[in-house]
Structure formats: C-alpha cells, structure tokens
C-alpha cells in the first residue's frame, strides 16, 4: 500500500516536472525541473528494485551532467523574445509534422500486443539466483556487450579529442607555473620559535638572511606588521 502510494506520488511529480521543463518560461527553471524529474525517475527505479541504476542516475545525471547543463544555461544570455520570434512562422509546418508523427504513433500503438510473460518480468529486474542488480548489470555491460561498451568508450574519447582540438589554444606570452620546481625549492621558508609576550617593537621583523637578496630598507619595515610570519 505504501509502495503504491509512493509510486503515484513520484510518478505524478515526475510528469508534472517534465511538463514544467517544456512550459516554463525561464530556461534555468526548466533545467531545475529537469533535475527534479531525474530525481523522481530515480525514485521510481528504486521502487522497481533497480537500486544501482537509481543511484547511478542521480550520481551521473543529476550530480554531473545536469550541473554542467545548468552552468551553460545560466551563463548564456538567452534572449527569450528572439527565441520565440520564429515560433508563429514555423508553427504551421511544425504542427503538420507533429500531427503526422502523432498519427503514426497512434497507428503503432493500435497494433500493440503485450507478450504473455510481460507481467512476470515486470518489477523483476534481477536475473534471480541471489544475484544483486549491480552484478547483473556488470554481467551485461562488461561481458555480454563488452564490444559495444568499448566502442562507447572510443566515442567518448573522440568527443574529448574533438573538444580539445576545437577549443584549446596555446596562447603566447602566458606564464606557466612549474609546480614541481616550486615544491623542490627549499631553504627559503624557515620556521622560527619566537618568544611570546614580546611586541614587535623589541623584536623587529625577523627574516631569514638570504645571501643574494639585498637587505630590505628600514622604511619598508614600518609598513609591514610582520603579518607574513
């Protein structure tokens, strides 16, 4: 009973959020609704017993992909008036294409038949025999479909190369930091025990004596209050 109630709540929020993604006027709100929709979809997966998939959906889509999406949408200065400019003009042709697709879809659904074993397969994401669904997914991804998995890896690699090729520029004149050289430097910073309760008046600024560095002038000492130590 609780499961059913949870299902209807999540399903309702999911559909409402999905509708808002399309209808909301502000694209940032659209993305936020999209995130809400992802979240509810993950909850539905949990109810169906696909806990691994649910968590991965949240981690990958909500935690990483949608963040970047939100970034782009927030930083792009989208002009809504211009976005809607062509709407009236393209409405007839777009409407016709949409109508045809809708009719086709109706045609397709009209011939829909449900396989006899479908109701048994529903809500049974595990192959059975005590295999957790992480293991079951791993079996499919890394054993049965390893070929496609590797190709998907190559596609992502290509996307990465493409992004670098098309955007990376080596600008002349930039000064780069050599972290290794910086860390390897030693002897320029020393820790010193200073007596407590003594003011700077008695103590003066204490600096390590560097052989090649010129002695700082006394005038400058007055401005610094020893804050660097």
């Amino acid at each position, binding site marked *: 009973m609780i499961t059913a109630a949870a299902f209807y709540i999540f399903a309702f929020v999911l559909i409402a959020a999905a509708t808002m993604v399309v209808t909301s006027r502000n694209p940032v709100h659209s993305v936020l609704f999209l995130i809400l929709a992802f979240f509810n979809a993950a909850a539905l997966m949990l109810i169906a017993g696909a806990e691994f998939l649910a968590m991965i959906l949240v981690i990958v889509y909500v935690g990483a992909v949608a963040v970047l999406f939100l970034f782009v949408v927030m930083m792009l200065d989208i002009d809504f008036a211009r976005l809607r400019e062509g709407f009236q003009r393209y409405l007839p042709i777009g409407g016709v294409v949409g109508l045809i697709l809708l009719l*086709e879809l109706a*045609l*397709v659904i*009209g*011939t*829909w*038949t449900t*396989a006899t074993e479908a109701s048994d397969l529903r809500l049974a994401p595990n192959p059975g025999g005590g295999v957790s669904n992480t293991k079951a997914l791993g079996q499919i991804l890394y054993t*049965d*479909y*390893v*070929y*496609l998995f*590797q*190709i*998907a890896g*190559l*596609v992502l*690699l*290509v*996307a990465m*190369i*493409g992004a*670098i*090729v*098309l955007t990376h520029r080596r600008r002349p004149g930039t000064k780069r930091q050599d972290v290794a050289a910086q860390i390897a430097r030693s002897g320029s910073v020393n820790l010193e025990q200073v007596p407590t309760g003594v003011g700077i008046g008695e103590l003066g600024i204490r600096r390590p004596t560097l052989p090649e560095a010129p002695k700082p002038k006394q005038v400058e000492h007055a401005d610094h209050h020893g804050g660097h130590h």
Partner: protein
Amino acid sequence: MNWTLALPEIALACAGLVILLVGVIPGRNTFFGCTMAVIGALLLAAVLVLGQPEGTALGGLYVADAFSGFMKILALLGAALGLVLALDFNRRESLDRFEFPVLALFATTGMMVMVSANDLMAVYMGLELLSLPLYVIAAFDRDNGRSAEAGLKYFVLGALASGLLLYGVSLVYGFAGTTNFDRLADVFSGNGGVPAGVVVGLVFVVAGLIFKVSAVPFHMWTPDVYEGAPTPVTAFFAAAPKVAAVALLARVLLGPFGDLAAQWQQVIILASLGSMLLGAFAAVGQRNIKRLMAYSSIGHVGYALMGLAVVSDEGLRGLAIYMLIYMLMNIGTFAILVGMRRRGRAVERIEDLAGLGGTDLGRALWMTVFMFSMAGIPPLAGFFGKLYVFLAAVQGGFWTLAVVGVLTSVVSAYYYLRIVKVMFFDEAPAEGGLDATTPGLAAVTATTGIFNLVFCLYPAPLLLAAGLAAAALLG
C-alpha cells in the same frame, strides 16, 4: 566470446590509442609522423581483414563475411588515400595537428564496426563512432567561419538523423523483441504480416541511414558541409564514409529486413530517383567546384542505390562495384582539387582551372580522365560502374529507374564536360596558372587515374570479389 574474429577493428583501435599517446608527448609537431603511422595502421588492418575468417562473434554483435571484407578493404583504402591528400594541404593551411589523422583513424574504426554490424545496437555505435570524428574534422579549420559552420551544420543535422535512427530502432526492438539481425530475420520470415510498428520503425531507420549516405530527401547538409570543410576533409567525406554508409544500408535492409523488401523497396527507389535527378540538375549552376562535387556525390549515391532498390544478386554486385569505382574516381578528382593553388593560396572556383591545359598538361589530362569517368563515358571505369547497376535494373524490370538513370547521366555529363572545356579552351587568368602539384598528390592522381583507364581491360577479379560479396549478403 571469440573476440579474435574482430582482430582488424581491435588492432586499429589500439593503434589509434598508441598513436594518440605518442603524438601528444613530444613538444614538436608530429603531424607527418602520425599521419604516416595511421596510414600504416590502416594498411595493417586491411591485411588483417584479408586474412579474416568468416563467422559471427562477440555474442552475435559482429559478423565477418565476404561483403564486410570487400567493403572494409574499400573503406580502409579510401581513408588511407584521403590522408595522403591531407599531408601537404594541412601543413600549408596550418592545420597540421596530429589529432587529424587520429580522428580519421577512429572514424575508420567506426566504418568497420558499421560494416560488420550484426545488431542494431552495433549499427548505432558504429555510426556514432564514424560521425563524431567527422563533425570535428569538418570544423578542423576552426578560425575559418565556413569550416566552423560546416562542422556545426553537420553536427546538428547528424544528431537529428541519429535521433531518427534511434527512434526507428526502438520501435523495431519494441515490436520484434530483439535487435540481433539473425533473430530479426527469423521473426520477419514467418508468414503473416508484420506489425505496423515495425514498418514505421523501418522507415525511420532507413531515413536515418539515408541521411548518412546523403541521398534525397536527406541531402541538404551535403553542399554546405562539402564546401565549408577543408578540401582534404571533403575528399575524405566523399570517399570512405560514403562507402561504409552505403554498405551499412545494404546490410541492414537485406539482412534483418530482407523479407520486408516490399515495405522498403519503394522508399529506396524514390531516394534513388530523387538523388539522380537532384545530382544532375542542381549541379549545373554551381561555380564552386567543391559544391559541384557535393551534388555529383548525391547523384552517384542515387545510381548506387539503384543497385540496392532492385534487390537482386546482380544489383548488389553492381552496388559493390559502383562504390569501388566511385571511391577511386573521387579520390583522384580530389587529389587534383586539393592541389589547386595559385601563388600559394588555395582556390576552389571552377574558373580557377581555366587554362590548365596550357600550363600543366599532365594534370589537365588526368582531370579529363576523371571527369569522363564520372560522366560515364566508355571505356573508363565510371561507365562500367553505371553499366552494372543499369543492367541489374533492366533485368529486374525497373525500367523507370534505368531510363531516369541514363537521362540524368546525360545531363550530368554537361557539367563534367564543362570543366574539361574550361581547362582546355578558356584563357588562363592574368595572375598566372596554378602552382605545381606535390609528389604525393601526383602519385595518388596517377594511381587512381590508371585504375580508371585500365579497369576495362581486366575487370574479372574485382567483379568476382564483388559477386562474392553480394552472394554473402543475399545468401
């Protein structure tokens, strides 16, 4: 698992990773070395394909047969020749970054995956692995507005086509319950009709694939992309990926959907007719030679699809042989177009060829050979390519296709011959003739040119190979 069957793809992908790694390390430019290494890897893969046994592997996702072997050799050859064309051009236009050959290599891997696909999922993955590098190299001249536009246009429309394909695939999967080609063929071979969902899905799949071969009505990206992309990239586009996409279309339609030929035949016939007509008439008014080549390639795809539309052994053999000849004609023509420079600057208008007969007779003659071959004038190779598909159409009783094919050949001969006329009978412009070509380009021109000339003398082995390939698919 039997993964060793996919050795050519695995070897090629691994070679790509190694070349990427080696190319990125040294501080100096590794473009030349990487290109050479990639060409070597492509040839190695071709050798592996030749030695490949037949069969299915990797859980039924991968199939190797005579058809895949034939088409893979074509694709590998086309990719390798395309890279040779890029060597000098990219250096002069400061596009000589080592990622270029690496991306081309991954695209070629995608082509091989497509050609060997035995599952709708493998089809999609191969297609994406092919397309993504192509989007990038179309925009490779990123500071050039036209190149960036070409890349973006190709990307947006390509993504739309992928969406159509995926939608179709999901419908087919939903109604058939499997994505594996053999099992799909089993499902559809039974008597009794197929559900409407499968037919709708099939239409979407065909639409997605027709986009990739740039046939009418999904051709509109071709002229802009061909014109905007750097010339060697256009050469690459026109050769290898087209072969792979046509091969994939043939495999998908004749493999799992072979028994539904009645459903898809008219679609292919219409696409073929439309492509031939558009290729013939739209190219007439073009001034930019790359745009002209784009329309020409649309027309050629129309002829090739004729071989598919007739659904027969002869038709498929004609298609295989047509793709071989088309690819070599195109590479040869582009070898000349890539070398079109005046005072160091690349030029790409038809008028820029004026007077080439006077300044560089050798090149003008080779160009004439290619143009005659494209127009289908005997005894050049292009004539035979058309001959076999027309023959198959006539034998199958598809008179409309054959007649339209002949008529559009005549129309297209006009613009091919116009180029010859410009080269030999127009005055060279005042600023002088074209710069001398480079040895690499000259070698490619000569090799492909000789092929076009001597194909008529001894076509038997290639015909035999194409026949075997066709038989493997129609089985």
